[in-house]
Protein backbone atom coordinates (compact mmCIF):
# COMPACT_ATOMS: atom_id res chain seq x y z
CA UNK A 1 0.00 0.00 0.00
CA UNK A 2 2.96 2.29 0.73
CA UNK A 3 4.28 1.70 -2.78
CA UNK A 4 0.95 2.70 -4.30
CA UNK A 5 0.88 5.82 -2.17
CA UNK A 6 4.42 6.70 -3.32
CA UNK A 7 3.36 6.13 -6.93
CA UNK A 8 0.39 8.42 -6.40
CA UNK A 9 2.77 11.00 -4.94
CA UNK A 10 4.88 10.84 -8.09
CA UNK A 11 1.79 11.23 -10.28
CA UNK A 12 0.77 14.28 -8.28
CA UNK A 13 4.29 15.70 -8.63
CA UNK A 14 4.14 15.18 -12.39
CA UNK A 15 0.72 16.85 -12.49
CA UNK A 16 2.08 19.82 -10.52
CA UNK A 17 5.07 20.35 -12.81
CA UNK A 18 2.93 20.09 -15.93
CA UNK A 19 -0.04 21.98 -14.50
CA UNK A 20 -2.27 18.96 -15.17
CA UNK A 21 -5.06 19.49 -12.63
CA UNK A 22 -7.07 16.83 -14.46
CA UNK A 23 -4.46 14.26 -13.34
CA UNK A 24 -4.14 15.51 -9.77
CA UNK A 25 -7.89 15.63 -9.13
CA UNK A 26 -8.76 11.92 -9.72
CA UNK A 27 -5.55 10.77 -8.01
CA UNK A 28 -6.36 12.99 -5.04
CA UNK A 29 -9.97 11.78 -4.87
CA UNK A 30 -8.88 8.14 -4.92
CA UNK A 31 -6.10 8.78 -2.38
CA UNK A 32 -8.40 10.64 -0.03
CA UNK A 33 -10.80 7.71 -0.13
CA UNK A 34 -8.14 5.00 0.19
CA UNK A 35 -6.00 6.42 3.00
CA UNK A 36 -6.89 8.20 6.24
CA UNK A 37 -5.96 11.90 6.03
CA UNK A 38 -4.35 12.07 2.59
CA UNK A 39 -2.27 15.21 3.26
CA UNK A 40 -0.55 15.00 -0.13
CA UNK A 41 -3.64 16.41 -1.83
CA UNK A 42 -3.75 19.44 0.50
CA UNK A 43 -0.09 20.08 -0.23
CA UNK A 44 -0.70 19.57 -3.96
CA UNK A 45 -3.55 22.11 -3.96
CA UNK A 46 -1.41 24.68 -2.21
CA UNK A 47 1.64 24.12 -4.44
CA UNK A 48 -0.57 24.24 -7.57
CA UNK A 49 -1.93 27.63 -6.52
CA UNK A 50 1.57 28.85 -5.65
CA UNK A 51 2.80 27.92 -9.12
CA UNK A 52 -0.15 28.98 -11.25
CA UNK A 53 -2.57 30.97 -9.07
CA UNK A 54 -2.26 33.34 -6.10
CA UNK A 55 -2.15 36.43 -8.34
CA UNK A 56 -3.91 39.36 -6.63
CA UNK A 57 -5.69 40.27 -9.86
CA UNK A 58 -7.71 37.04 -9.90
CA UNK A 59 -8.76 37.28 -6.25
CA UNK A 60 -10.25 34.21 -4.54
CA UNK A 61 -10.19 32.34 -7.87
CA UNK A 62 -6.41 32.03 -7.39
CA UNK A 63 -6.97 29.87 -4.30
CA UNK A 64 -9.16 27.35 -6.13
CA UNK A 65 -6.67 24.47 -5.84
CA UNK A 66 -6.23 24.88 -2.09
CA UNK A 67 -9.97 25.20 -1.49
CA UNK A 68 -10.80 22.19 -3.65
CA UNK A 69 -8.13 20.02 -2.00
CA UNK A 70 -9.29 20.95 1.51
CA UNK A 71 -12.89 20.24 0.48
CA UNK A 72 -11.89 16.83 -0.88
CA UNK A 73 -10.18 15.83 2.37
CA UNK A 74 -13.02 17.08 4.60
CA UNK A 75 -15.84 15.67 2.45
CA UNK A 76 -14.25 12.25 1.98
CA UNK A 77 -13.49 12.03 5.71
CA UNK A 78 -17.16 12.77 6.50
CA UNK A 79 -18.41 10.39 3.83
CA UNK A 80 -16.14 7.60 5.07
CA UNK A 81 -17.44 8.03 8.61
CA UNK A 82 -21.01 7.64 7.37
CA UNK A 83 -20.36 4.75 4.96
CA UNK A 84 -17.98 2.75 7.16
CA UNK A 85 -19.99 3.00 10.39
Amino acid at each position, binding site marked *: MKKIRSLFGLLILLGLLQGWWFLILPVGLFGAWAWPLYVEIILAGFVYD*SLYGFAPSIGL*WGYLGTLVSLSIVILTAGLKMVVRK
Partner: protein
Amino acid sequence: MTYLQTRHNPARERARRVLLATGIMVVAVAIIHFLRPHLFPALFTSVARPFWRTELAIKLGSLTSPEGLLQENELLKRQLSDEALRLATVRAVEMENAELKALLGRASTTPYVLSAVLKRPPVSPYDELVIDAGADHNFNLNDNVYAPGNVLIGRISEVLGQTSKVALFSSPGEKYEVLIGTSHAPATALGRGGGQYEADLPRDVKVSKGDFVIAPSRGDKPFGTVISVATDPAEPFEKILFAPPVNEYELRWVLVDNSTAL
Protein backbone atom coordinates in the same frame (compact mmCIF):
# COMPACT_ATOMS: atom_id res chain seq x y z
CA MET B 1 -17.25 -0.71 44.22
CA THR B 2 -17.51 0.70 40.72
CA TYR B 3 -14.72 2.40 38.74
CA LEU B 4 -14.87 4.63 35.70
CA GLN B 5 -13.63 2.72 32.72
CA THR B 6 -11.02 4.68 30.80
CA ARG B 7 -11.12 4.09 27.05
CA HIS B 8 -7.77 4.24 25.40
CA ASN B 9 -7.77 3.67 21.69
CA PRO B 10 -4.21 4.23 20.34
CA ALA B 11 -5.30 4.35 16.69
CA ARG B 12 -7.93 6.99 17.35
CA GLU B 13 -5.50 8.96 19.50
CA ARG B 14 -2.91 8.89 16.69
CA ALA B 15 -5.44 9.98 14.10
CA ARG B 16 -6.49 12.85 16.34
CA ARG B 17 -2.88 13.98 16.74
CA VAL B 18 -2.25 13.84 12.99
CA LEU B 19 -5.45 15.82 12.37
CA LEU B 20 -4.43 18.41 14.96
CA ALA B 21 -0.91 18.71 13.49
CA THR B 22 -2.37 19.14 10.00
CA GLY B 23 -4.77 21.81 11.24
CA ILE B 24 -1.93 23.70 12.93
CA MET B 25 0.17 23.47 9.76
CA VAL B 26 -2.67 24.77 7.59
CA VAL B 27 -3.19 27.74 9.92
CA ALA B 28 0.56 28.43 10.10
CA VAL B 29 0.90 28.32 6.31
CA ALA B 30 -2.14 30.61 5.94
CA ILE B 31 -0.60 33.14 8.35
CA ILE B 32 2.81 33.03 6.61
CA HIS B 33 1.10 33.41 3.22
CA PHE B 34 -0.89 36.39 4.49
CA LEU B 35 2.24 38.10 5.85
CA ARG B 36 4.59 37.17 2.97
CA PRO B 37 2.40 36.49 -0.09
CA HIS B 38 5.35 35.98 -2.47
CA LEU B 39 7.29 33.55 -0.27
CA PHE B 40 5.64 30.26 -1.28
CA PRO B 41 5.14 31.10 -4.99
CA ALA B 42 8.83 32.12 -5.24
CA LEU B 43 9.95 28.99 -3.39
CA PHE B 44 7.91 26.49 -5.42
CA THR B 45 8.56 28.26 -8.73
CA SER B 46 12.31 28.17 -8.16
CA VAL B 47 12.00 24.41 -7.64
CA ALA B 48 9.83 23.89 -10.73
CA ARG B 49 11.78 26.26 -13.02
CA PRO B 50 14.63 23.85 -13.91
CA PHE B 51 12.07 21.22 -14.96
CA TRP B 52 10.11 23.76 -17.01
CA ARG B 53 13.32 25.01 -18.69
CA THR B 54 14.36 21.46 -19.54
CA GLU B 55 10.92 20.79 -21.02
CA LEU B 56 11.16 23.99 -23.06
CA ALA B 57 14.65 23.04 -24.27
CA ILE B 58 13.33 19.67 -25.44
CA LYS B 59 10.38 21.31 -27.21
CA LEU B 60 12.67 23.79 -28.94
CA GLY B 61 14.94 20.96 -30.09
CA SER B 62 18.01 22.05 -28.16
CA LEU B 63 18.76 18.48 -27.15
CA THR B 64 19.16 17.06 -30.66
CA SER B 65 22.35 15.38 -31.92
CA PRO B 66 25.48 17.43 -32.84
CA GLU B 67 25.01 16.53 -36.52
CA GLY B 68 21.45 17.77 -36.41
CA LEU B 69 22.56 20.98 -34.74
CA LEU B 70 25.28 21.54 -37.36
CA GLN B 71 22.78 21.06 -40.17
CA GLU B 72 20.32 23.40 -38.50
CA ASN B 73 23.13 25.90 -37.96
CA GLU B 74 23.99 25.81 -41.66
CA LEU B 75 20.36 26.25 -42.65
CA LEU B 76 19.94 29.14 -40.25
CA LYS B 77 23.08 30.84 -41.58
CA ARG B 78 21.65 30.66 -45.09
CA GLN B 79 18.32 32.01 -43.93
CA LEU B 80 20.13 34.75 -42.05
CA SER B 81 21.94 35.96 -45.14
CA ASP B 82 18.61 36.02 -47.02
CA GLU B 83 16.98 37.91 -44.20
CA ALA B 84 19.85 40.42 -44.07
CA LEU B 85 18.79 41.62 -47.53
CA ARG B 86 15.21 42.08 -46.41
CA LEU B 87 16.32 43.72 -43.20
CA ALA B 88 17.98 46.54 -45.08
CA THR B 89 14.59 47.47 -46.55
CA VAL B 90 12.84 47.06 -43.22
CA ARG B 91 15.41 49.31 -41.52
CA ALA B 92 14.73 52.05 -44.00
CA VAL B 93 10.98 51.77 -43.32
CA GLU B 94 11.63 51.70 -39.57
CA MET B 95 13.71 54.85 -39.74
CA GLU B 96 10.95 56.55 -41.66
CA ASN B 97 8.42 55.30 -39.11
CA ALA B 98 10.53 56.56 -36.21
CA GLU B 99 10.86 59.96 -37.83
CA LEU B 100 7.13 60.18 -38.41
CA LYS B 101 6.35 59.16 -34.81
CA ALA B 102 8.86 61.67 -33.50
CA LEU B 103 7.08 64.30 -35.59
CA LEU B 104 3.81 63.31 -33.91
CA GLY B 105 5.42 63.64 -30.48
CA ARG B 106 5.49 59.97 -29.49
CA ALA B 107 8.42 57.78 -28.47
CA SER B 108 9.73 55.94 -31.48
CA THR B 109 11.23 52.91 -29.80
CA THR B 110 10.55 51.00 -26.60
CA PRO B 111 13.01 48.63 -24.93
CA TYR B 112 11.35 45.23 -24.72
CA VAL B 113 12.58 42.19 -22.86
CA LEU B 114 12.16 38.86 -24.64
CA SER B 115 11.03 36.07 -22.35
CA ALA B 116 10.19 32.41 -22.87
CA VAL B 117 6.71 31.18 -21.95
CA LEU B 118 7.10 28.32 -19.47
CA LYS B 119 3.40 27.54 -18.88
CA ARG B 120 0.31 28.70 -20.69
CA PRO B 121 -3.43 28.04 -20.85
CA PRO B 122 -5.35 25.80 -21.24
CA VAL B 123 -3.19 23.64 -18.93
CA SER B 124 -3.42 26.25 -16.21
CA PRO B 125 -7.08 26.94 -15.36
CA TYR B 126 -6.26 30.48 -14.28
CA ASP B 127 -5.88 31.94 -17.80
CA GLU B 128 -2.35 33.06 -17.01
CA LEU B 129 1.10 32.66 -18.51
CA VAL B 130 4.21 31.83 -16.49
CA ILE B 131 7.24 33.45 -18.14
CA ASP B 132 10.95 32.95 -17.65
CA ALA B 133 11.96 36.40 -16.40
CA GLY B 134 11.05 38.40 -13.34
CA ALA B 135 12.68 40.73 -10.86
CA ASP B 136 16.06 39.84 -12.42
CA HIS B 137 14.95 41.87 -15.48
CA ASN B 138 13.42 44.69 -13.45
CA PHE B 139 9.84 43.72 -14.24
CA ASN B 140 7.12 45.57 -12.38
CA LEU B 141 3.47 44.87 -11.69
CA ASN B 142 1.24 45.88 -14.62
CA ASP B 143 4.08 45.99 -17.17
CA ASN B 144 2.59 45.41 -20.60
CA VAL B 145 3.18 42.06 -22.27
CA TYR B 146 3.18 41.70 -26.06
CA ALA B 147 3.00 38.68 -28.31
CA PRO B 148 5.28 38.66 -31.37
CA GLY B 149 3.97 41.23 -33.82
CA ASN B 150 3.48 43.82 -31.06
CA VAL B 151 0.09 42.41 -30.06
CA LEU B 152 -0.79 43.47 -26.54
CA ILE B 153 -2.06 40.38 -24.70
CA GLY B 154 -1.77 41.05 -20.97
CA ARG B 155 0.09 42.54 -18.08
CA ILE B 156 2.42 41.29 -15.37
CA SER B 157 0.31 40.25 -12.40
CA GLU B 158 3.02 38.87 -10.13
CA VAL B 159 6.78 39.32 -10.18
CA LEU B 160 8.95 36.61 -8.65
CA GLY B 161 12.74 36.23 -8.66
CA GLN B 162 13.33 34.69 -12.07
CA THR B 163 9.76 34.15 -13.25
CA SER B 164 6.60 36.21 -13.56
CA LYS B 165 2.92 35.56 -14.03
CA VAL B 166 1.06 37.30 -16.83
CA ALA B 167 -2.67 37.95 -16.48
CA LEU B 168 -4.18 37.80 -19.95
CA PHE B 169 -6.57 40.57 -20.90
CA SER B 170 -8.99 37.92 -22.07
CA SER B 171 -9.39 36.54 -18.52
CA PRO B 172 -13.07 36.08 -17.61
CA GLY B 173 -14.68 39.21 -16.22
CA GLU B 174 -12.02 41.70 -17.39
CA LYS B 175 -13.56 44.77 -19.07
CA TYR B 176 -12.03 47.22 -21.56
CA GLU B 177 -13.19 50.16 -23.61
CA VAL B 178 -12.51 49.33 -27.25
CA LEU B 179 -13.04 50.72 -30.74
CA ILE B 180 -14.32 48.18 -33.25
CA GLY B 181 -14.06 48.13 -36.99
CA THR B 182 -13.38 50.73 -39.62
CA SER B 183 -15.99 53.05 -38.10
CA HIS B 184 -14.23 52.84 -34.71
CA ALA B 185 -17.50 52.02 -32.95
CA PRO B 186 -17.00 52.38 -29.19
CA ALA B 187 -17.96 49.39 -27.02
CA THR B 188 -17.12 47.67 -23.76
CA ALA B 189 -15.28 44.39 -24.30
CA LEU B 190 -15.69 41.63 -21.77
CA GLY B 191 -13.07 38.90 -21.42
CA ARG B 192 -14.45 35.37 -21.89
CA GLY B 193 -11.24 33.46 -21.17
CA GLY B 194 -9.37 31.32 -23.65
CA GLY B 195 -8.18 34.35 -25.60
CA GLN B 196 -11.64 35.60 -26.53
CA TYR B 197 -13.65 38.74 -25.88
CA GLU B 198 -17.23 39.75 -26.49
CA ALA B 199 -18.85 43.13 -26.96
CA ASP B 200 -22.35 44.38 -27.76
CA LEU B 201 -22.94 46.93 -30.52
CA PRO B 202 -26.14 48.38 -31.99
CA ARG B 203 -27.24 46.38 -35.02
CA ASP B 204 -26.97 49.29 -37.41
CA VAL B 205 -23.19 49.54 -36.84
CA LYS B 206 -21.46 47.81 -39.70
CA VAL B 207 -18.91 45.33 -38.36
CA SER B 208 -17.65 42.32 -40.24
CA LYS B 209 -15.38 39.38 -39.64
CA GLY B 210 -11.70 40.33 -39.75
CA ASP B 211 -12.20 43.96 -38.65
CA PHE B 212 -9.56 45.29 -36.27
CA VAL B 213 -10.27 46.12 -32.64
CA ILE B 214 -8.26 48.77 -30.83
CA ALA B 215 -8.17 49.51 -27.09
CA PRO B 216 -7.12 53.17 -26.70
CA SER B 217 -6.35 52.71 -23.00
CA ARG B 218 -3.88 49.97 -23.93
CA GLY B 219 -1.93 51.92 -26.53
CA ASP B 220 -2.30 52.08 -30.28
CA LYS B 221 -1.28 48.46 -30.94
CA PRO B 222 -3.85 46.06 -32.42
CA PHE B 223 -5.91 44.50 -29.63
CA GLY B 224 -7.80 41.93 -31.63
CA THR B 225 -9.68 41.00 -34.76
CA VAL B 226 -13.37 40.23 -35.08
CA ILE B 227 -13.94 36.48 -35.43
CA SER B 228 -17.73 36.36 -35.33
CA VAL B 229 -20.76 38.66 -35.43
CA ALA B 230 -23.91 37.13 -33.96
CA THR B 231 -27.14 38.94 -34.81
CA ASP B 232 -30.55 38.10 -33.39
CA PRO B 233 -33.48 39.86 -35.19
CA ALA B 234 -35.32 40.09 -31.87
CA GLU B 235 -32.46 41.96 -30.19
CA PRO B 236 -31.45 45.59 -30.83
CA PHE B 237 -27.78 44.69 -30.29
CA GLU B 238 -25.44 42.34 -32.08
CA LYS B 239 -22.81 40.34 -30.24
CA ILE B 240 -19.25 40.79 -31.49
CA LEU B 241 -16.72 38.11 -30.66
CA PHE B 242 -13.08 38.97 -31.17
CA ALA B 243 -9.69 37.52 -30.32
CA PRO B 244 -6.08 38.68 -30.45
CA PRO B 245 -4.44 38.15 -33.85
CA VAL B 246 -2.17 35.55 -32.20
CA ASN B 247 -3.16 32.29 -30.54
CA GLU B 248 -2.32 32.71 -26.86
CA TYR B 249 -2.31 28.94 -26.45
CA GLU B 250 0.60 28.56 -28.82
CA LEU B 251 2.84 31.34 -27.56
CA ARG B 252 6.44 30.39 -26.89
CA TRP B 253 7.89 33.86 -26.51
CA VAL B 254 6.56 37.17 -25.30
CA LEU B 255 7.94 40.69 -25.09
CA VAL B 256 7.67 42.65 -21.85
CA ASP B 257 7.77 46.41 -21.82
CA ASN B 258 9.44 47.06 -18.47
CA SER B 259 9.86 50.78 -19.02
CA THR B 260 6.32 51.83 -18.13
CA ALA B 261 3.32 50.32 -16.41
CA LEU B 262 -0.07 51.58 -17.55
